[in-house]
């Protein structure tokens, strides 16, 4: 059961502001401000206006924690407060799973520049290394920070499966509860990849959009004019609680994680085959675990990255797995509003799914004016939709070939 949620998203820090953004269909993409993007092909991103001190982090934490670790800690604190569990956590029965695709990449990019003196030195200079460089070197340090914050001493791990990390981390944590290794898991994902090295590497494979003259409308999943994703950042963390544990304390539950599965496409590190076969396998396996039929799904939270190949791939996968029901099921992509925060987005989308169930309201796909003829499902264009929503499917696709699916259900 999800009994607590914390979110840091572009245009919406905290669950309340995040949900306002989504339900109003606003976008938070803009020209990159973190550094001068002029030399790059894609100069658009969804950035969070985030001041760590405002969210309770002290000067030493701010120095020690990469931006993504700061997001993880802030969202974990919000989730634990939201759950009302803070005072009663049993350390031994509480674990942590944090997902992240690229870890402390911002700090590593910045610190490399210093120790190499702007790339001049082949042998980088250790005299210029910051004391907490090892915390950036091993992204598992994020897990440490969250565990220290909540006082967790149970099973703790980072899960890093590229852009499916956010679904896989929550699925992993739910699995630990199911097998009895923990009663409570603080789980979710965080990424803060808006740094020159990330922008450059996505430029090199033309994965990100060059729609630089119109940043607010640059993320256009399922639209005929889409030409790549918009890089984003953020985090979502949850308190996941064993059913009886939550029931005994009469906790409010947003949703139940009913099914989860992942598959690999074994095809290409960055490419997708058009038929969506492996993703459809993951969807079927997640439905099987939930013991649900495709017809019971009320809404699909799409990966919807806005690359040419992704949107066709997942449209095919959803049709393949849900059959005729795919045409009757609304499916939207919130990356249209908050960009693609790599490993974090899967968890942010789970937060959106839980809130869709709570509010019976589906966030829209912004910027969708003219659907690609090959993307012929109901993508909830432009405006949020009131919709009875008891069960949701969320899907993700990542570099490395990872295809993941999770089913969330209104608590019974």
């Amino acid at each position, binding site marked *: 059961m999800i009994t607590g949620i914390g979110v840091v998203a572009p245009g919406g820090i905290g669950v309340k502001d995040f949900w306002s953004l989504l339900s109003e269909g606003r976008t938070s993409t803009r020209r990159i401000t973190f550094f001068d993007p002029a*030399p*790059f092909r894609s100069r658009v991103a969804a950035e969070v206006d985030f001041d760590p001190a405002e969210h309770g982090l002290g000067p030493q934490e701010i120095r020690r924690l990469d931006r993504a670790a700061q997001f993880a800690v802030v969202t974990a604190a919000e989730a634990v407060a939201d759950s009302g569990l803070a005072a009663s956590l049993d*350390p*031994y029965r509480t*674990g*942590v799973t944090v997902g992240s695709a*690229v*870890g402390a990449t911002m700090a590593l*990019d910045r610190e490399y*520049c210093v120790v*190499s003196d702007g*790339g*001049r030195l*082949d042998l*980088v200079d*250790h005299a210029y*290394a910051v004391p907490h*460089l*090892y915390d*950036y*070197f*091993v*992204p*598992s*340090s994020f*897990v*440490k920070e969250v*565990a220290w914050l909540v*006082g967790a*001493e*149970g099973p*703790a*791990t980072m*899960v*890093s*499966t*590229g852009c499916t990390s956010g679904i896989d981390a929550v699925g*992993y944590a739910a699995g630990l509860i199911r097998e009895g*290794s923990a009663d409570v898991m603080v789980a979710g994902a965080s990424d803060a990849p808006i740094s020159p*090295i990330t*922008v*450059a*590497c*996505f*430029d*090199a494979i033309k994965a990100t959009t060059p729609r630089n003259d119109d940043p607010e409308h640059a993320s256009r999943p399922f639209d005929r004019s889409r030409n790549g994703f918009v890089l984003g950042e953020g985090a979502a963390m949850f308190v996941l609680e064993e059913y009886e544990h939550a029931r005994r304390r009469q906790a409010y539950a947003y949703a139940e994680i009913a099914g989860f*599965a*992942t*598959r*690999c*496409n*074994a095809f*290409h*590190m*960055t490419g997708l085959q058009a038929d969506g076969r492996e993703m459809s*396998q993951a969807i079927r396996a997640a439905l099987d675990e939930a013991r649900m039929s495709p017809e019971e799904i009320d809404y699909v939270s799409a990966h919807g990255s806005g690359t040419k190949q992704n949107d066709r791939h997942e449209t095919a996968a959803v049709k393949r797995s849900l059959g005729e029901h795919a045409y009757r099921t609304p499916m939207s992509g919130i990356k249209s509003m908050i960009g693609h925060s790599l490993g974090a987005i899967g968890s942010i989308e789970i937060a959106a799914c839980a809130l869709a169930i709570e509010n019976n309201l589906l966030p829209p796909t912004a910027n969708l004016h003219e659907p690609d003829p090959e993307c012929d499902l109901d993508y909830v264009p432009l405006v949020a939709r009131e919709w009875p929503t008891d069960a949701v499917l969320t899907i993700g696709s990542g*570099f*490395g*070939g*990872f295809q993941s699916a999770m089913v969330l259900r209104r608590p019974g």
Partner: protein
Amino acid sequence: MSTPVVVTGIGVAAPNGLGAAEYWSATCRGKSGIGEVSRFDARGYPARLAGEVPGFAAEEHLPGRMIPQTDRMTQLALVAADWALADAGVRPKEWPEFDIAVVTASSSGGFEFGQHELQKLWSKGGRHVSAYQSFAWFYAVNTGQISIRNGLRGPSGVVISDQAGGLDAVAQARRQIRQGCALVVAGGVDASICSWGWVAQLTSGRLSTSDDPDRAYLPFDAAAAGHVPGEGGALVILETAGAAIKRGARIYGEIAGYGSTFDPRPGSGREPGLQRAIQLALDDAGLAPGEIDVVYADAAAVPELDRIEAAAIGAVFGVRGVPVTAPKTMTGRLCSGAASLDLVAALLSMRDGLIPPTTNTSPAPDYGLDLVLTDPRSLPVQAALVLARGYGGFNSAIALRRAGSAQLGKKDPG
């Protein structure tokens, strides 16, 4: 009782031996793979020794097009995966495509590849960054590349918990087998012996600054002063005992129990979590402490951490209550590869009834450990325990049971 999950294949790339046979022979002879860093000029740094995998030429094992798109850790991992599958007698193409998965651990990704691309970015500009940078350095790369090379489409994953990851990956693989996946390639193979990775590791404050390969990494010694980093690791093949017996596979041993905990925040006054991880693994395996014949220690060689580990082992097994070894004194600590390699050594200990030595160390008597020193010890090993810890507070333990002992006895194929 859950279905027993067993290891039927092993692939090793270690500093003291490429391939499981070479590694095991070197390890039992006490042959070290630690020497001066050769992959970059380390003379100007405070630490200058490493355990490097010798004589590994990626182009001898992998297609030419793979070389420019992979970091060294991925090249080593791809080859270790090939060897593990071959050792298990598994040709993936003959298996249903969704039946085999890959779960690897990483600690810091393809750091050397990342250094090269960062250098291009900062010295020449973003347009010079390789298209492969989008995946070659990231933490999921080994799983992705092993999956692609072998056509493995099952429920795969990647875990990161520093050194503990090498056991956490195997535990996650066991979960996937129990949930119906037929076969999993699991473990950790790591490498970041480049100047950028070196500087990052130096800031941990845990690297030995000794120049003497025989005195640099001395766990449980009064002179312990940090470790020597290394590269490499191991991948293993997991499946159910039933499936292994049915297809006539050789069984190295059962992944009988697993426990994972996290240390409390420093200054909290609460107990460290390692002892609990050991207890959880033993309980999960249904093994009493007295049934464990050897403990493969994490062996941090940082006095405070050695003390905690010795106390945890002592609390569960008693003073000098169980043989303890740390053959990683011959390889260095291999990041996420270290514990997977120890797991392999423990399986081979069970196969051969032989415990390899902890070389170089003269144990401080107050730790109360029965360390296997200098020469290997011959001893029937029915069950073994492997410990691993990761920076920040990760503790993991895996208990192994020999094929042919109690649970698997009647079904042992020979």
